């Protein structure tokens, strides 16, 4: 998975995936794919900070909710079309991450994690109680989306296909960013920070700046995903988007897939979404039970994640031509 070959392979895979709605018309399958792309984007965004830089955030729901609320408020109150609102939501999340990061990154390890948790809970309280801006616990309901013509064709917002493509593009953006990051100077800084923060500082890395930039990037991707969530589900309230559960799910996806890998979050999102949705169909409540179980099994037996282990195996089996294969346990 190195260099231009990987990039080309990724592009081809994305194009191939983009053609899926032409072949598959089953809306449940498309819905599942959309969920996978959404969660893979979120896992990717979390992974930038948690996997590469080793800064475990338990508060990413705050950024997700911020993006979602920004998009919804801009659309419903200021009539800003959502496709502008989504990037603006991402920017809003990034803008909030910077001061938060400057303060929270003074803390390390579990203390940082706990601080992010507190920030997210504060954000939820604000969303619940600042009724003027957020409608409080009632949340927002988007009844209709504005018409849009793309390539001369009117968009059908009731169909799954436009959302499918948008989610795919979003995931492509997230993966491309992470791939670019992982081979950049900043990426190397982050790994150095993860492995030994004091040593990284000693060799002259501005660790706070590197971490804040990464958090802003992660916040932007998370915020975009939040905006997409609003458009797709057309309903948000503080419990839906600012829940501790959302933060934890992002962590799980990155960990199950493989911390600090580019493809890991996609693998994690695939496993967890399919397991979760299958159980949800059968039992209704408690579908997250498998998230917990998966998480425990993976940490116990595959601490480097499913994709982390698989890519190691592939490297060992074929050192010359590294190619993506079926993830193996």
């Amino acid at each position: 998975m190195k260099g231009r070959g990987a990039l080309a392979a990724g592009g081809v895979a994305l194009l191939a995936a983009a053609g899926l709605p032409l072949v598959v018309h089953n809306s449940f399958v498309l819905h599942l794919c959309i969920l996978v792309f959404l969660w893979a984007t979120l896992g990717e965004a979390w992974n930038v900070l948690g996997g590469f830089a080793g800064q475990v955030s338990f508060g990413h729901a705050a950024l997700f909710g911020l993006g979602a609320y920004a998009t919804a408020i801009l659309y419903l109150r200021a009539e800003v079309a959502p496709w502008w609102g989504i990037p603006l939501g991402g920017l809003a999340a990034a803008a909030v991450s910077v001061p938060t990061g400057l303060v929270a990154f003074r803390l390390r390890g579990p203390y940082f994690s706990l601080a992010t948790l507190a920030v997210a809970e504060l954000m939820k309280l604000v969303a619940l109680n600042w009724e003027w801006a957020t409608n409080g616990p009632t949340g927002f309901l988007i009844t209709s989306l504005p018409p849009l013509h793309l390539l001369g064709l009117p968009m059908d917002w009731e169909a799954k296909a436009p959302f499918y493509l948008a989610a795919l593009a979003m995931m492509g953006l997230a993966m491309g960013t992470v791939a670019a990051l992982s081979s950049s100077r900043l990426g190397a800084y982050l790994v150095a920070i993860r492995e030994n923060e004091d040593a990284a500082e000693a060799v002259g890395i501005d660790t706070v700046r590197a971490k804040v930039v990464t958090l802003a990037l992660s916040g932007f991707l998370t915020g975009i995903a939040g905006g997409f969530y609003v458009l797709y589900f057309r309903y948000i309230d503080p419990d839906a988007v600012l829940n501790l559960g959302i933060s934890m799910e992002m962590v799980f996806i990155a960990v199950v897939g493989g911390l600090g890998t580019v493809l890991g979050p996609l693998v994690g999102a695939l496993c967890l979404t399919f397991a979760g949705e299958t159980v949800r169909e059968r039992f209704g409540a408690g579908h997250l039970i498998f998230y917990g179980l998966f998480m425990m099994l993976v940490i116990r037996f595959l601490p480097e994640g499913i994709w982390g282990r698989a890519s190691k195996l592939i490297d060992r089996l074929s050192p010359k031509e590294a190619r993506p294969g079926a993830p193996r346990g």
Partner: protein
Amino acid sequence: MGALYAMIGIGLTIVFGVMRIINLAHGEMVMAGMFAAYLGQKHWGLDPFLSILLWAPVLFLAGVALYRFLLARVLPGGELNTLLYTAGLSLLIANAALLLFSGDYRTLTLGYAIVPLRPFGIAIPVALAIGFALAVAITTALWLFLGRTDLGRAIRATSQNREAAILMGIDVDRVAAVSFGLGTALAGAAGVLLAPSLYLYPTVGELVIVKAFVIVVLGGLGSVPGAVAGGLLLGTVESLGAVYVSSTYKDGLGYVLFLLVLLYRPSGIFGVGRS
């Protein structure tokens, strides 16, 4: 509430002190205690406060088993992995409860605790008063256990300096198992005591765990007196905040306090834990 908060905090802080991990499943253990009290009363007519004699040992054993069969195996994988492992455990327990009991809100009512006590003209719910008294008793007993018995001393020694404890011939693994059991039993016992005063639902742990973190960090991670002080402080701040600031933002006050302590005094008010 303060004393009950303190009890939850002590459980978390002991586990952190000995094992250097933050147990994210701690809230679910409180939830387990609440449901145990509820089911005990519903099916066997057990008084929730008396049933603590049954549930605390059961939860202790459950905690030891959890440590032995699950946690001990991932501990060598490092702090981060163990932390995430307990997060998985937390989700597993909460959702198992959701499957078993559904997400309904339940209440546990006591025949003798409907009319509040009115000493000095202040209305105090009976259930909370009994819970408070028992929590104080349990905390005192624990204090004596940690201070006066060999096992208690071994726990404190391990949490102060693991290597030195090993050199002194302490079986650190056994100490960790006992501490985890103790932490679980304390969380569960607090849950039993809280059951008559709160709504019961499977994801109540989420609410509890965040408060528990606040308490433990306020007092300093790993410090038992710190957890007591943190619990009392949070209880007081929340009640005063609800009266003098606004009841909707009372939880927010706790978080703000938490962030301030984290930033300016990360070792906690008592300065025992290290950042």
